[in-house]
């Protein structure tokens, strides 16, 4: 016993190091499961209010930019309204809305990690639920990962695990958007077959297949692509239209058809 105590005393530094480092690595390894979610929920609840307070300060400096953004948006909506009124004069089209939108402010954002998250200033109190899509005028931002009362956490498209269904604007070929982990202005697209007619500068839009995002939201343009011998798919690199480092206001899209669609597809799977 005495020897044991002496041993522990003599090597306490290494033993403590092994203990703490082991614990760290354990945290790291369980990062993606239960533990990770719990920590995220904690940091959302307490760190969220701090982020919100500080973003109030930075908001002040962004006023000019925000004004311009809102003016542009207004102009766009006006022109849409005009078009609508011309159309509705000679034909009546009833189409149930597929999505409901609400705006939210980004109070914390990161783009330089390998797994990036955003925090929004709206939560369950405002009707935000897990799995809703987050978009802006110029692109897809991410999917709501978890919500607290007043805040919500978004898995950015700049996340290893995010995989978003996209397609070419002029052809119906579907692909998957996966982030390669470094440059926040670029991302890669898989699964577009190499018989598709692809050119540099082609626009990539969201496909709307998953019912998380509406169909046809512009995402980015093709900056390079290559055919890999022995593989049937292109390797495509695109550049985002949206500067993900500077997003300030976003829209949370709530799908009104998602439940119905998923129920229908679930039935098919059971057979």
């Amino acid at each position: 016993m005495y020897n044991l105590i002496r041993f522990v005393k003599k090597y306490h530094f290494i033993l403590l190091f092994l203990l703490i480092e082991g614990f760290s690595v354990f945290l790291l390894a369980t990062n993606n499961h239960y533990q990770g979610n719990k920590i995220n929920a904690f940091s959302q609840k307490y760190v969220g209010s701090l982020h919100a307070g500080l973003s109030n300060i930075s908001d002040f400096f962004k006023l000019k930019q925000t004004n311009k953004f809102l003016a542009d948006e207004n102009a766009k909506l006006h022109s849409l309204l005009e078009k609508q009124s011309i159309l509705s004069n000679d034909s009546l089209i009833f189409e149930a809305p597929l999505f409901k939108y609400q705006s939210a402010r980004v109070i914390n954002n990161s783009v330089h990690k390998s797994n990036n998250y955003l925090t929004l200033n709206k939560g369950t109190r405002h009707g935000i639920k897990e799995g809703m899509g987050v978009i802006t005028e110029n692109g897809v931002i991410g999917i709501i990962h978890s919500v607290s009362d007043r805040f919500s956490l978004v898995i950015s498209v700049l996340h290893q695990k995010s995989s978003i269904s996209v397609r070419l604007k002029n052809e119906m070929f579907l692909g998957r958007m996966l982030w390669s982990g470094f440059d926040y202005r670029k991302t890669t697209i898989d699964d577009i077959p190499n018989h598709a007619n692809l050119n540099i500068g082609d626009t990539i839009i969201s496909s709307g297949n998953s019912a998380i995002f509406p169909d046809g939201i512009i995402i980015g343009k093709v900056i390079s692509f290559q055919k890999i011998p022995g593989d049937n798919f292109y390797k495509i690199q695109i550049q985002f239209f949206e500067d993900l480092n500077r997003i300030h206001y976003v829209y949370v899209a709530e799908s009104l058809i998602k439940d119905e669609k998923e129920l229908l597809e679930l039935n098919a799977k059971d057979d």
Partner: protein
Amino acid sequence: MIKQLYKYFWLTPIFIFIQVYILNQVLFNGYINPYFYIMLIICLPQITPRWFLLTFAFLLGVFLDVFEGSIGFHSTACVMIAFLKPAFERIIIPKNTISAEQDLFLQKLGFKMFSVFAFMLIFIHHTILFLLAHFKLATFIDIIGKIALSSFITFVIILVCQFFFFNSDRRK
């Protein structure tokens, strides 16, 4: 001995704040990602009890992890450099250069010794951190580039901070 360490307690929130709200917001090209908060670990005096060194490094890492919304990355890297620090002190800093209670600051160690000491620890920290963070998806060259550039910028920021501390000491 604990008296020497008091200031690290109130410096910790300030460093985390600067790191999370200023340095993490500034991005250069996706490759440069300085983490200057590890200066707190680097500068701890030689007399610091070993258990305190490890625990302090772990808590510092955990705080940063919580603020960044990740978990385990910073604490693993911080604990590793805290473990290596005493060995490096023995190798790099000759005896009687500096009394054991003094913080390992630039003006006390001299530029050459401080640079070697700080840069090695920074480099190890960044290597572990970025390897863990980008292991799966980035190419080897990308990671090496990111480690090298970020270490250098962190080192420069820490040097600038050292001059800041130096001046404040003089005024007293």
